[in-house]
């Protein structure tokens, strides 16, 4: 039997050290656990400071005893390697465990145990915990803002339709694969925009939208019979003509007035709100700011002085002003510059403003990627006879964009979290709705629940985006 040396545990008497150590650590955690969950201090017979530090001392000694290298027990080895490498790490690990145990009971009680969700008025919220009833009652408003309840199916339907159209890429056959980029970059945003804007707005404008669709469908069907030589002109002229004919000649207001066709109820954009507005604003700003930013970044590196300085001017201007003033300008100043009878919807103005603002950031991020590419890539592409656009689309941008995925994801996340600022122009997305709801006289004093709710939603959205960007990174990794 070897002598026990508690200062230097070793493999002799291994189990003595192990059991003593484990008991000590378990005891320390047990003391903290009892103290925090049941408010019982079983070591209170000791003098104050000692009883306060006792768990720490016990746990520390225990961790010291089980710190035996190459013990042969895999679990013990992994603990020693990861959280118990030396005295300092053992101390930090213990502290973290204690803090977690200490903070669980109040959190649990606030979130679940003392919280209320039943009932439908403020009166049921008697406990000291959260009042989820508030969220439950206001849930509809938080999702759809002031949008009239019977019409909310339109929002749902358009989101489902957009999600479906967005998934087209997964079902595309080999033949159509090469058009997918074009579809996602040009066609999809346009469809999405019209869908969201006209369908959710409704009213007579919805008819314009349906005329547009009818004109497009007819012209595409006819397009199959047109020789490809004229297709270019055909697709510019015919849809527009059809649209105008439909709108002004065949049936416009007469039909609506006759009651033969009932338009969707008109809902002005000021009434949109809640989470759906967050989605709409972030989605459109994302898909608009990216191409603008791309062109700005290319423009900034252009050889033509006019393009170059315009791009620099744009980027520096938008980067130099705060978003809140940009939004304010878009709602107050911008209409002054427009002719009297011209009107651009508030929401559209806001989307344009945020897109331009974020485009400047995206541009600089992409420029970073462009500069990271070696000059040889440009030389190689040029020597193969590629012009500016071919070189950039086929060789430079795929590599540069791959490099800047983390940076772009960063910008996009910031954009999503900037959307609450649109409250300055009177558009209330989810945080705006929360602020409105918390000032409702019947529901005073529940700001906390609201903000927690919003944080959770924002976290889910942002975490999903960040995961997605990480997946993209992995997908396009072609290095060894």
């Amino acid at each position, binding site marked *: 039997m070897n002598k026990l040396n508690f200062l230097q545990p070793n493999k002799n008497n291994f189990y003595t050290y192990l059991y003593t150590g484990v008991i000590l650590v378990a005891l320390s955690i047990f003391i903290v656990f009892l103290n925090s969950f049941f408010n019982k201090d079983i070591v209170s017979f000791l003098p104050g400071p000692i009883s306060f530090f006792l768990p720490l001392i016990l746990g520390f000694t225990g961790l010291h005893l089980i710190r035996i290298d190459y013990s042969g027990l895999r679990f013990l080895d992994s603990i020693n390697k990861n959280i118990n490498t030396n005295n300092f790490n053992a101390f930090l690990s213990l502290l973290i465990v204690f803090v977690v145990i200490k903070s669980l009971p109040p959190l649990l009680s606030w979130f679940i145990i003392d919280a209320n969700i039943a009932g439908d008025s403020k009166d049921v919220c008697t406990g000291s915990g959260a009042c989820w009833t508030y969220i439950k009652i206001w849930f509809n408003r938080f999702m759809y803002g002031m949008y009239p309840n019977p019409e909310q199916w339109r929002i749902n339907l358009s989101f489902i339709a957009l999600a479906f159209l967005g998934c087209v890429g997964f079902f595309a056959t080999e033949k159509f694969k090469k058009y997918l980029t074009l579809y996602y970059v040009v066609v999809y945003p346009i469809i999405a925009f019209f869908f969201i804007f006209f369908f959710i707005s409704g009213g007579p404008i919805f008819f314009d939208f349906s005329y547009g669709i009818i004109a497009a469908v007819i012209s595409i069907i006819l397009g199959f019979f047109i020789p490809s030589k004229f297709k270019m002109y055909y697709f510019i002229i015919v849809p527009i003509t059809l649209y105008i004919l439909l709108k002004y000649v065949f049936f416009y207001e007469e039909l609506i007035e006759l009651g033969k066709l009932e338009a969707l109820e008109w809902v002005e954009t000021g009434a949109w709100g809640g989470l759906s507005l967050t989605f709409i604003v972030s989605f459109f700003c994302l898909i608009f700011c990216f191409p603008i930013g791309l062109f700005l970044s290319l423009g900034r590196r252009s050889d033509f002085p006019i393009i170059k300085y315009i791009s620099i001017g744009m980027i520096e201007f938008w980067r130099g002003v705060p978003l809140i003033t940009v939004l304010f300008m878009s709602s107050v100043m911008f209409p002054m510059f427009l002719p009297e009878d011209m009107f651009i919807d508030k929401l559209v103005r806001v989307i344009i403003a945020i897109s331009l603002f974020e485009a400047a950031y995206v541009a600089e991020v992409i420029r970073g990627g462009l500069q990271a590419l070696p000059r040889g890539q440009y030389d190689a592409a040029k*020597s193969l006879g590629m012009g500016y656009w071919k070189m950039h689309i086929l060789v430079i941008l795929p590599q540069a964009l791959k490099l800047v995925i983390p940076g772009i994801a960063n910008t996009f996340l910031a954009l999503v979290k900037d959307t609450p600022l649109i409250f300055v122009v009177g558009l209330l997305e989810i945080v705006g709705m929360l602020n409105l709801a918390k000032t409702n006289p019947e529901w005073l004093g529940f700001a906390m629940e609201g903000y927690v709710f919003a944080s959770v939603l924002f976290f889910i959205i942002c975490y999903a985006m960040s995961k997605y960007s990480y997946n993209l990174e992995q997908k396009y990794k072609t290095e060894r």
Partner: protein
Amino acid sequence: MSDKIIQITEMNKWFGDFQVLKNINLEVEKNKKIVVCGPSGSGKSTLIRCINRLEEHQKGSIIVDGNELTEDTKDIEKIRAEVGMVFQQFNLFPHLSILDNCTLAPIWVKKMPKKEAEDLALQHLEKVQIADQANKYPGQLSGGQQQRCAIARALCMEPKIMLFDEPTSALDPEMIKEVLDAMVNLAKAGMTMIVVTHEMGFAKEVADEVIFMDEGMIVERAETKEFFANPKSDRTKLFLSQIL
């Protein structure tokens, strides 16, 4: 006249105040193989980069296959498509597989159907003996394999002239041979080649003429045998004594 595929007359180039090329006169006939050698900084690379206008010259004229290279050459891309170039640092496109590297330009620049381009690419990859690596990415290949792929990529455009800018300088000694072999085969197939290299063995084997450059000037131009047997200028003698 018609068989002079490159004509450079009185060409001068400056980088800022520094004159890199001074009064270059050079004529290259079709199917000739020319090796350019000289110490570093003598303007060899700049000279061949000027031939497909990766660098612009300021004075004099360069005529490639009947087209003069000037600032307002609209179809510079067309000329470049007929002049293949291989770089010291390979410059393969790392985001594309070896096969895609080779088919990219034929498909998008020459509008070749995809199937045809792939057949052509495989044919050229076979010639440089890396057809079995066609689906790997450049990052997974050795330097020698990458350089051979770069040669195949340039050949896929079916160029009339091939320019080599120190193709073996970034390679291990062991890999130099495989790249040089590929180049020798290419030379034997009758390609017009201008090669900037320090591989004098290669020069002796395939070159019709050797050009020696120093300080931006062509110091000596001679038939290969003549060049190595009795160089005329002292500078060339010094260079050869150090390199051989």
